[in-house]
């Protein structure tokens, strides 16, 4: 049988290369591949107001281990990790737990929190706030400074104000325990 070898060789070679290339895409996780530049650096400064109206800033937390969790009302995984975080906050009273509500636009936060069905979430949110403060970051500047690409993201800050660990995506109890132990060390 006659075969057009150039077509066969070039075609199959090209196909193999293309398929191999596309297959490499499966191993790359968009979130984890983003280079983490914040770990080992000073936690970026912020001054934000919590839902009760109290102002919080990084400076006043100096000397205290801090756990910062960026989250949103519309984010499912955030809700999943919330109970664990509330428990952890109870178990480690020496660590300052802070939630930062992440969103792009002030208008949306406003609309979202005060209208149905979010007013229902709002009460949930306030009950959560009893456990630890939740700060509002209306224009997303703090999230930007922390390099947050999506929620949830959590940051562990030690007593000297250095970020020791950054978690992209929901946190599990083991990682939380391990990293909290690290920032609680003198």
């Amino acid at each position, binding site marked *: 049988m006659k075969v057009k070898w150039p077509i066969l060789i070039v075609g199959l070679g090209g196909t193999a290369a*293309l398929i191999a290339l*596309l297959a490499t895409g499966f191993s790359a996780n*968009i979130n984890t591949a983003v280079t983490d530049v914040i770990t080992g650096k000073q936690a970026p400064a912020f001054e934000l107001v919590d839902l009760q109206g109290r102002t919080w800033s990084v400076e006043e937390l100096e000397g205290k281990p801090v756990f910062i969790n960026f989250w949103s009302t519309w984010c499912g995984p955030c809700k999943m990790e919330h109970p664990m975080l509330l428990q952890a906050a109870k178990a480690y009273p020496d660590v300052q737990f802070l939630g930062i509500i992440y969103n792009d*636009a002030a208008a949306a936060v*406003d609309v979202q929190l005060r209208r149905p069905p979010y007013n229902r979430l709002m009460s949930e949110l306030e009950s959560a706030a009893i456990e630890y403060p939740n700060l509002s970051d209306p224009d997303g500047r703090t999230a930007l400074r922390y390099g947050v690409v999506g929620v949830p993201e959590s940051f562990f800050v030690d007593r000297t104000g250095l970020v020791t660990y950054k978690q992209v995506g929901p946190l599990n109890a083991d990682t939380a325990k391990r990293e909290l132990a690290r920032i609680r060390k003198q």
Partner: protein
Amino acid sequence: MISMLGRGLVLAALFFAATGCFAGFWAGSRRNQRAWEWARNSAYGFSASMILANLAMVYALLVRDFSVSYVAEVGSTTTPLWLTIVSLWASLNGSILFWGGILGVYTALTVYSLGDRYREYTPWALHVLMGISIFFAFLVASIANPFAPIANPPLEGPGPNPLLQNHWLMAVHPPMLYLGYVGMSVPFSLICAALLAGRLEAGWMVPVRRWMLVPWMFLSIGIVLGGWWSYAVLGWGGAWAWDPVENASFHPWLTGTAFIHSAMVLQRKGKLRDWTLVLGMSTFLLTLLGTFMTRSGVFNSVHSFTQSDIGPVFLAFIAIVFVYSIVLLALRSHVLDEEARLTDARLGHRGSSLASVLSRDTAILLQNAAFGAFTFMVLLGTVYPLLAEALQDRRISVGEPYFDRFALPLGLMLVFLMGIGPSLPWGRSAPETAMKRLVPSLAVGTLFAVVALVTGYNKPMTVLALFLVGFALWGNLFEFIEPVTQRMRARKEGPGVAAIKVWGKARRRFGGHIAHYGVLCAVFGLAMSKGYRHEQELNLNTGEVAQFLDYEITFAGARDDSETHRISSVARFEVAGLGAFEPKVNTYTSGGRMAGQPIFTPAVHSTPTYDLYFSILQISQDKTNVIVRLIYEPYQVWVWFAAPIIALGTLIALLPPRSSRASSVKPAPVGEGSRS
């Protein structure tokens, strides 16, 4: 109940696809009449089951049967009726079912339109088409099953993705693209059929080209509507950003367009055969690649709405289809060589080279080369980030500067060829005749350029683009007018009668010219709107007045509007002489993980000569301050005009010419076209 019914229909479709594929092979290789009937009935069976499965899903969505997994995933009791219906393609599993449904419609129409003609080819065509159907039916029946029953159905679902809810174009743009993508499997099957049957007559190229035109038209409309949607929803005032998903739809359009032209050379001259077949097959392969890009999550795109785990399975399917096509081409195209040689010998043809430089053939050859290069460059830019990451472990993104650098010169070259091609005859022409044809086009082009310069549009690229638009416009218009005037003179007919007679006879050609006008509209709109766009951000308090170009803009205040499925923050701007503009920030109460995300909806004032575009960037909590982006874009709507004009042209080209029925019953061999 609907779960069981839907699943049953999908399994029936899988069964019919498998039997059709097998019977097609049997009928093709053994020339068995009963196997052919079996294949044809199976194809109809596949179509019917897939279409009914789609209707079952629509019904489940309408009655909000949350015991069906897909309805529980995208349905919601607060969603308006039209959105409930379009939820069919709101998420992955539904859209693959919809995909199968469209494949069903195409299959039925293909089988019906080919009828009992072309009996040497049709069994093979069904064999391939049903082979493709097996894969999609398998997907719907297994990993992408939208009919999975839910034991404890929820009382309420999350509703469709807010981006889908935000604009009516989402009811039209995705189906158009699907019709374009899925339809490409038909010309692919017909081309494979020629290779499998070991012959390719000019007569068979007629349905191949027509079946390429149908999905090509939908793809063209889909791409323009996608640009329009991006413009009307995303708030940056642009239509095209060379995003991987956009490029995914552009690749098959480029090769499909090249195919439509090179197929003319094949039909007339019997030349460029392998190249044309490769183009036709690549078009389908690129649609598969496009689907993979949209669905697999491998490409980092602003609109990878639907990421899922079907990626590896889909990649395997792509690999199979690529290998199948290449092996088929390598093993079988020499049979076509043999056949073409015999035909040539019978008709006394010599293996002539294409033609002289000054001919339509050469213009199409160059056009094909340009389209080929264009496709390669876009594809390279799209997969380059993957390459860089695989080889150098760098995450990079290839942006507009890369694409614009080659898209602009290649695009302009294509417009130039679009003006030259129709002006030149097939075969060869004397330089004097060619010049006589081209001088008026050059004159009209120059006129366009001068008008642009006089009216103040003096950027070199814009002037060049307008020159080429004028040049190509006249080249195509002349082809329209000349035969009419000739007939008027020869037969002493009025212009109306002559035009209808002449245009009615050569619909394919005139349809092509009309499609060219559509493309020219888009080129004109792009040249003007990209070249003379003005953009400014304003920070305004209630009652404040600001100046943007010649417009006096007052921020009249903001308010909240509430509907069942969304809440909108609306800012009102009054523009002296134009009235009120109300851009919005919509927040949807339903839509799964996307619910609650603000979606900025611009307000646009469109006129034939300019668009004025308002897009909110931020509204303060007390609604007294707003940051708004204002964009002025001249002649933007001309880009959208392209879609209906291209569609009209294609539809005219698709109408059967009066004499075609007779000629296609007895197809002429490929070689016979090259008489000129």
